């Protein structure tokens, strides 16, 4: 099943399942997806299925239909694509049983609509609230381009047990530890002779990592990102 999401300023306004071969998008009532906006034509576009593919076709609208920023006549749309009609955007999601396919990462739960009051069960709530930290390698001879901090403790060091590996004869086996606590990610320097720099200043105390912090350690420059 394919669902079409209509969004305005990032918020989901409506969700429409493609139940028939063709559905229409437009300003007039009677369209399957109605957009009440003067920039939108009476019948503005059609969305349909061709085999496995979902396509969108402009219905000779006044202001045009845009796919990923390009004006189109008729084009196949994928789950990552964004269709713009007037000031609204359309995107599709595939519903496969209960799971939602969207690119390769079904990791973040889909939040239905933020304008509506909703009740989250506690498990979902924890998943949403839980910060997902990653380090991306900006510079230096790292063993990976980015590091997901999924374990409770991540080690930075020369040790073969370290997830974030540093090199050099004088590099410590363990230079720092990152702890994923319920308050966030804490970085603790473990080697007094090889202290890390956080945002340019040397730190010898545990540091609560914040989004976009820059960490320099053992020849690596890493940026902390919260997803």
């Amino acid at each position: 099943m394919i669902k079409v999401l209509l969004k305005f300023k990032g918020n989901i306004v409506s969700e429409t399942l493609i139940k028939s071969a063709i559905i229409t998008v437009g300003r007039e009532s009677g369209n399957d997806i109605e957009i009440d906006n003067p920039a939108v034509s009476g019948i503005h576009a059609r969305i349909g299925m061709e085999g496995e593919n979902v396509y969108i076709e402009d219905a000779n609208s006044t202001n045009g239909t845009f796919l990923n920023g390009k004006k189109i006549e008729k084009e196949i749309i994928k789950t990552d694509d964004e269709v713009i009609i007037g000031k609204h955007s359309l995107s599709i999601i595939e519903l496969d049983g209960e799971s939602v396919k969207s690119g390769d990462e079904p990791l973040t739960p889909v939040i239905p609509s933020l304008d509506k009051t909703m009740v989250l069960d506690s498990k979902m709530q924890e998943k949403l609230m839980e910060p997902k930290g990653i380090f991306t390698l900006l510079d230096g001879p790292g063993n990976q381009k980015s590091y997901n901090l999924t374990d409770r403790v991540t080690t930075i060091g020369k040790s073969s047990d370290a997830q974030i590996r540093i090199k050099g004869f004088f590099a410590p086996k363990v230079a720092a530890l990152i702890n994923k606590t319920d308050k966030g990610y804490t970085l603790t320097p473990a080697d007094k002779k090889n202290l890390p720099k956080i945002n340019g200043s040397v730190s010898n105390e545990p540091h609560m990592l914040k989004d976009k912090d820059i960490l320099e350690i053992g020849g690596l420059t890493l940026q902390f990102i919260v997803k």
Partner: protein
Amino acid sequence: MKIYASALSDKGPFREKNEDYFCVEKAPALFIVADGIGGSLAGEVASRMAVEVVRDFVAEKEGDFRDLNSGDEHSVCATTLAEGVKLANSAIFDISQNNASYRGMGTTLTSALIFNERLSVVHVGDSRAYLIRAGCIQQLTDDHSLVAEQIRLGLITEEDAEHSTIKNVITRSIGANPEVEADINEINMADGDIVILCSDGISSALTNDEIAAYGKNAKNAEDLCRTLVNSAIAAGSRDNMTVVAVYIYKDAISHLFNSIASCVRRQNKDD
């Protein structure tokens, strides 16, 4: 990989009886500390029951552990431990509901399972698990306590928490409700790691840095348990105290090196 473990439980100088319970199992390598809650006999019963239910459940499921690539967020070991905790919760809740003398009983439980060089920690309540790696101490559990919640919400600081009068109030326990959610944490084991499980009789009397320092100077797991209990008593702990200390050696040479190094440190200290 070699694992050396030791445990010690002491009722402390102020308590009539010991409501803590623990287990140390070889195969699979399972360690549990539980701190019972409830009047008369109930606390003792709850902590012991919880440990035994989880221990027996893990022993029964050990055959499933090979299947490590479950594709889920957590390993089979971790989810098995969490299932065991749920089972213990139902068992204790049922008894407390159906037996007046056990009404209101409950327990904390902190468990650690090592399999294929991976450590799974599953806990409910405020008994803690620590990792000492390269002399640096890290908490592997977040307390399910009122003060921890207050810190998380920014109402009080960590320093305020040290002197809080409601330090012993926990927000989650095994046996209080029909359902319980356990926290799961996992890490890979590294050579020289020390894992400590303890009840709050230890962790509320000693700071993390003090525990790290004792870990650095201890001869072995047994010595560390003894030192932590004695230090907690000296620091005025009024509660039952239980410690399990686990030493990880990935190769024999590092084991030898570490024991020589700690002997040398020990001698220097005695001089």
